[in-house]
């Protein structure tokens, strides 16, 4: 079965989730990956959405984090100050999923502006929940397409900065991990058919590569079937 670069990323991100983890999810690819995990190998994963839902179990993918389906299938719905203060800042979140427009070698994430803050070339939506999630989740999984434009020497704006937790970055080419001592991203895995040179050429800094570089398993037919079924209800909007 053939698959797209986004599908490889989503499946790889889903595989990072082990069962019974408590996962703070944003909309888009992160929500897709977390729900794929929940519907396949990690059925007891607890999904927490920043709009205040704890334990959502949506049958189809929502377009917005505020979608009614997420509230109706949740174990509890709490106010927004509480979700950030008691649950995230309180240390109850195992894994936070994030996206970004840019990432640099230190794992800093930009979702605010391309160009200068006062005179931006492109004004992006902003940090939203991400600054707190990056700082406070025990582990952060970043999902981002890899290119010279996204893997930059220095992000144009540090919207979110990794805290003391672990960071894994899943791209369409492979997987990188933040070295806990050096605080630098290291390439640890490539997707099937991807070479190290290819990853290097899509990275704007001199990329470090792990001594024992692994090749990721291709998405299984079952993964792809569940993923496509999840997405079919909404079409391309949720991708």
């Amino acid at each position, binding site marked *: 079965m053939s698959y797209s670069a986004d599908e490889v990323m989503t499946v790889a991100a889903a595989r990072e989730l082990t069962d019974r983890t408590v996962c703070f999810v944003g909309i888009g690819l992160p929500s897709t990956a977390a729900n794929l995990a929940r519907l396949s190998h990690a059925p007891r994963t607890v999904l927490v959405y920043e709009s205040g839902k704890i334990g959502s179990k949506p049958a189809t993918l929502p*377009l*917005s984090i505020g979608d*009614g389906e997420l509230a109706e299938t949740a174990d509890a719905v709490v106010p*927004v100050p509480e979700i950030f*203060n008691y649950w995230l800042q309180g240390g109850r979140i195992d894994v936070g999923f994030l996206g970004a427009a840019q990432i640099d070698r230190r794992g800093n994430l930009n979702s605010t502006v391309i160009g200068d803050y006062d005179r931006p070339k492109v004004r*992006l939506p902003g940090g939203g929940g991400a600054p*707190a999630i990056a*700082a406070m989740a025990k582990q952060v999984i970043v999902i981002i397409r890899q290119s010279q434009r996204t893997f930059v020497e220095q992000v144009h704006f540090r*919207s979110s900065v990794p805290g003391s937790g672990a960071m894994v970055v899943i791209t369409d080419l492979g997987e990188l991990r933040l070295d806990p001592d050096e605080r630098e991203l290291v390439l640890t895995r490539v997707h099937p058919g991807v070479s190290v040179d290819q990853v290097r050429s899509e990275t704007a800094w001199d990329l470090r590569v792990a001594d024992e570089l692994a090749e990721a398993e291709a998405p299984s037919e079952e993964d792809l079937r569940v993923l496509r079924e999840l997405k079919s209800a909404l079409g391309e*909007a949720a991708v």
Partner: protein
Amino acid sequence: MAELLRLDEAVRELVHDGDSVALEGFTHPIPFAAGHEIVPQRRRALTLIRMTPDLIYDQLIGMGCAAKLVFSWGGNPGVGSLHRFRDAVEEGCPAPLELEEHSHAGMANRYAAGAANLPFAVLRGYVGTDLKERMPTIAMITLPFTGEIRTAVPAIRPDVGIIHAQRADRHGNVQLWGIVGVQKEIVLGSARSLVTVEEVVDELEPRPGAIVPPTWCVTAVAEAPHGAHPSYAHDYYDRDDGFYQRWDEISRDRDRFQGWMRERVG
């Protein structure tokens, strides 16, 4: 005691040029009808406050009602950019927009401090970010008791707080359930508050998980059926995802946006 007013009267009485105004709703139920009353009343120089400014703020900004935006995430959820917001920030059109930008955690804490009548909130967060470097409303403070360094953000107490809810009774007691977001904090933290509701009923039946701002902490209540559309009102109607997707097209071009607003909103 809250006054029961027509929506146009309520907006005229409560919202003035130059006010700081928070039309809140964290994805549910966003007070679109109230926003659509501010536009034709030609309010100007507003400081708009909201964690997640979406389509209604895109419209207010594009129609020139705002001078400043206090926010933490300004996009069209699941779709992409807010084109009128971007045009204001990138091109200064129709007018330059001053930004006061925070994280969701920071904004939620600022609202909670406002409701609690505290000068500021303390939180972990913002460490190492450029938001901390750029925003005078983010400061590092040394804590009493432990001497640790933490982040402080000032309380938000808007001139006017506006939310939408499912129901009110004829005395102006309000009932809101589903995702309750930061709506309670906005009603309690604002100098004046307006709640639009799907319907005014004789008696409010208790609902699990509902918050009930009582009439004595609300300034005005106005009936506005379908007043959260294209967002949703839990147990009344669903989110109109199609409209959010169409907005991307409508709002992309200045002239098309103006034409749409004149025809639909006034």
